[in-house]
Structure formats: C-alpha cells, structure tokens
C-alpha cells in the first residue's frame, strides 16, 4: 500500500478547476517527482495534502487513514512536512528558534539545553551550524531553503514535501542538493514528494514522476518514460 494516496482529488477556485479528479500514489521510501507546466495545479495539490486547503471533492489518505479535511497542524503531527517555493522562515527569530518551532510538533516540552542540542543537530544536518544565532531574515536565499528543510525535518516527518527547492541554484549546487536529498531519504527512511522545474534533477533523483497538466494527471511512470512521452512534450511545448 502506498504511504500517500489521493482519490479523485478536485479543487475549484470560483469557476476555475485547479485540480480535476486527480488520483495519485506516493509509495513509502521512494522519491516521487511532481512536474507540469505553470498553472498545472502542482502547488494546489501540495496545499491540499498539507492541509492548507481542503479539497472540493475527493480524499487524501496517509498511511491508510484519511487526512483531507484535517487542520494543517494535525496533518503535520501525522508526519507530513513541506517546504515552500518562496521560503518563509520566521524572520525575526534565530535559526535555532526557527527549528525549535518544528521541534514542538513531537516534543512540546523539552528543557532549554535539550531543545537547543536537538535544534543544533538539525541545523548541522543542513550545514547551517554557524548561523544558529543569526536571525533568519539575514540569511541568503540558499541558506533560507536549508533552514526550511531543517525546520521541516524537526517536525520528524515520514513524508517530506519539497516545493522547488532547486530554484536559483547553479549546476554544481543542484548536483549537491540532489545528492543531499537522496542521502537524507536513505538516512532517515523518508518518503519524498517533490515538485521541481529542474528536469535533470528530477530525472536523476526520482523513482517515479507524476505529470500534471491543467488540473488533471496527464501520466505517471519512471522518469525516462515520462520525458520521452509525446503527451508530456506536448504539454510543455505546445504544438
């Protein structure tokens, strides 16, 4: 059974159907890519899974239990964490405190030294140990992305959802980031659901790719099969 499953997931904004009856599955322990042209509904799907939006129709199940309709914090407690395309750290708080907010999810009453050690551990995991006492607003874009991953990890998720973490990175940094995420998956036994525009990275990292187009699931399959599929090429490039 897949860790995350959606059945007939739809969402309308006014008269616009952002998602229209999407069925999808993310198998435990895999990296699943979610691609599609702009406006295909990728972020809407993420928002529904994470609980920021409720689906108009359809259900989402996580680990066999329905999560659609639950408030976001409960979904987080079930074990789903996400990052954002445009990072949103708590700017006025230090990196350590940002991670501390994530720690509350599993350990709501740790003592001072305990949570600081734990938070420092998550920061070290993403290479931000030197910035622990820096206010998050002073970080650069890449550091903010790392911080967001650290904060997401601190909630101790089973499913990590990444929304375009590679945007703005150069080729070498992309290579490192892909390696990092694969390593993270292996070390923590995570499942990764990953929206990405950098196609090369997704080809390399993902075991399965879902393609959304105009709110519907265009196709799914192994990366190599997906990129060579004429429907996908058509969706991206037009006639």
């Amino acid at each position, binding site marked *: 059974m897949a860790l995350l499953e959606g059945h007939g997931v739809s969402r309308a904004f006014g008269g616009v159907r952002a998602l229209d009856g999407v069925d999808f599955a993310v198998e435990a322990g895999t990296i699943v890519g979610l691609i599609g042209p702009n406006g295909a509904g990728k972020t809407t799907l993420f928002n529904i899974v*994470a609980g920021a939006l409720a689906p108009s129709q359809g259900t989402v199940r996580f680990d066999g239990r329905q999560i659609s309709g639950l408030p*976001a*914090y409960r979904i*987080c407690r079930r074990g789903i*964490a996400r990052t954002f395309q445009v990072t949103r750290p*708590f700017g*006025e708080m230090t990196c350590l405190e940002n991670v*501390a907010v994530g720690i*509350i999810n599993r350990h709501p*009453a740790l003592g001072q030294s305990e949570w600081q050690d734990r938070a420092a551990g998550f920061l070290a995991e993403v290479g931000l140990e030197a910035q622990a006492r820096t206010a998050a607003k002073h970080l650069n874009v890449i550091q903010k992305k790392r911080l967001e991953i650290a904060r997401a990890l601190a909630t101790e998720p089973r499913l990590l959802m990444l929304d375009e973490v590679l945007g703005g990175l150069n080729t070498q940094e992309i290579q490192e980031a892909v390696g990092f995420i694969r390593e993270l998956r292996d070390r923590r036994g995570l499942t990764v659901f990953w929206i990405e525009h950098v196609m090369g990275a997704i080809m390399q990292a993902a075991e399965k790719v879902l393609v959304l187009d105009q709110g519907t699931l265009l196709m799914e399959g192994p990366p190599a099969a997906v990129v060579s599929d004429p429907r996908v090429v058509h969706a991206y490039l037009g006639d």
Partner: protein
Amino acid sequence: MFALALTNGLVIGIVYALTALGVSLVVGIMNVINFAHGEFYILAGYFSYLFAHTLGMDPLAAMLIAVAGVFVLGLVVEYTLIRPTYGDDMYSLILTFILSIVLQSIYLLVFGPYPNKPPGWVKGATDIFGLFFYGNQRLAALGAGVAVIALFFAMLKLTWFGRMIRAASQDREMAELNGIDTTRLNMFGFGLGCALAAAAGVILAPVFPVTPTAGTPIALTAFVCVVLGGMGSMSGCVLGGLVLGVVENLGAAYVSTGYKHLFMFLILILVLLIRPAGLFGRREA
C-alpha cells in the same frame, strides 16, 4: 515641576504600555482588534475592589485572582464569540464593540456610576532626590508595571508558549504547517491579552478609580500606542506607551490639562508623517 510631570508620565506610560501589549499580542497572533480591551481593564479593577473590599481579601491576593478571573473570561470570550468569526476580521471587530457596550452597561447596573477604588498596597510618600514627595502607591504601581512587562518579555523569549506566539505572529499558516495548533494558541493568546489589560487595571485602579466607562479612553490610548510603536512590534508598543504617558503629562503641566488627549494625537500624527509604519514597524514587503 518637570521632574514631577516626568515621573507621572512614566507611571501612566508603563500602564499604557501594559494595556497596549495586550492589544498588540491579540492583533499579532489572530489579527483581531479587541474593542472590549478597556472593559477587561475595568473589570479587573472592579474584581480587585470586590475581592478586597467586600470579601475582605488581602489586596495582593485580590489582584491576582482578579487577573486570573479576567484571563478565564478572555478564554470564554474567544471560544464563544471570536472563534466563529475567523476568516472575517470585520465580524470580530463588531462583536467586540458590542461586547464593550454590553460590559459597560453591566458595570453600570451592578456597580453604579460611582468611581470604585480598591485599597492601596502601601501608604505614605517618598522624598525623590529632595525634589518632591511622591506617593508610594504610584511608585509601587510603576514597579509592578515594570515587573509584569519584564515577565511578559521573558515569557515571549524563553518559553515554548512564547516561541509559538512569535512564530504565529510572523506567519500563521507556516506555524500551523509546522504543527502548531493555532486555534488553541488563539484562545490562550486572547486570554493572555485580556490578562495584560487586567494587570494594568489592578495596578492603576488604586490610583485612578474605575467607573463603568473609564475603559474607553484607556483602550483608545492603547490602540494609539500600538500604532505609534508599529503594528506587530512588542518593544515598540512599550516605547509608544512611555512616550505617550510622558508627553501627555508634560503637556498637561506646561500647557493645560484640558489638552491632555490632544497631545497624544499630535504625537501620533507627527510620528506617522515621518515613519508611516510606526516607530519600530516593519514595512510590508
């Protein structure tokens, strides 16, 4: 005269700051402007009067119970009145406005239009550097106000509840996505905001007695403090309170007491002309 007006300004300014912190906290966490804030202040004054005078309790115990009572009432108000309105800020605005009128009428009915004053904590006066004699009660109020504000900031900085408040004030949705139950946080945040108003109320009531409608100018001043200090900035709020208190009292001493409230708005207009986001306000990106 200058030193006296300055001291008066600091005493009243600290109480303004305390009241304004409550407003700022509630605006920050849940984006609700509580128009009944002043009435919670007054209620705490009545409570401490009632417990100390009528029930003969120790003044300090009466104050603590008064603040706790208002805190609980705040939880109830959030649960019954505010919670159903999330998503539309206008409803909570109107509801709390109605609540303020209802509370005022209840006070009038129960306590009558007369000023009520809980007993002072200390007697006598102290010679301040040989300049003037100042009432011990007012000095005690100053000390208590500073202590409560310090405690509040320590709570924000050092506790889990404080970190949750700061996170939710900066980005509510993100806080929720990181596992924070913002509905429950709202309830306790609102209660705490009311408790801050209550703390200001019990501190100042022995100096300035409470009447059913005395909460309105208090709440108005608190709103001005929040805007003056910059929406969302807690330390700006404290500075705003102190500035207002001092300016009001210096103005009253050197110009006329009749213009007391005029000075407040002059300062506000001046600050907003130069810094539209307030003294410590973050400009919206």
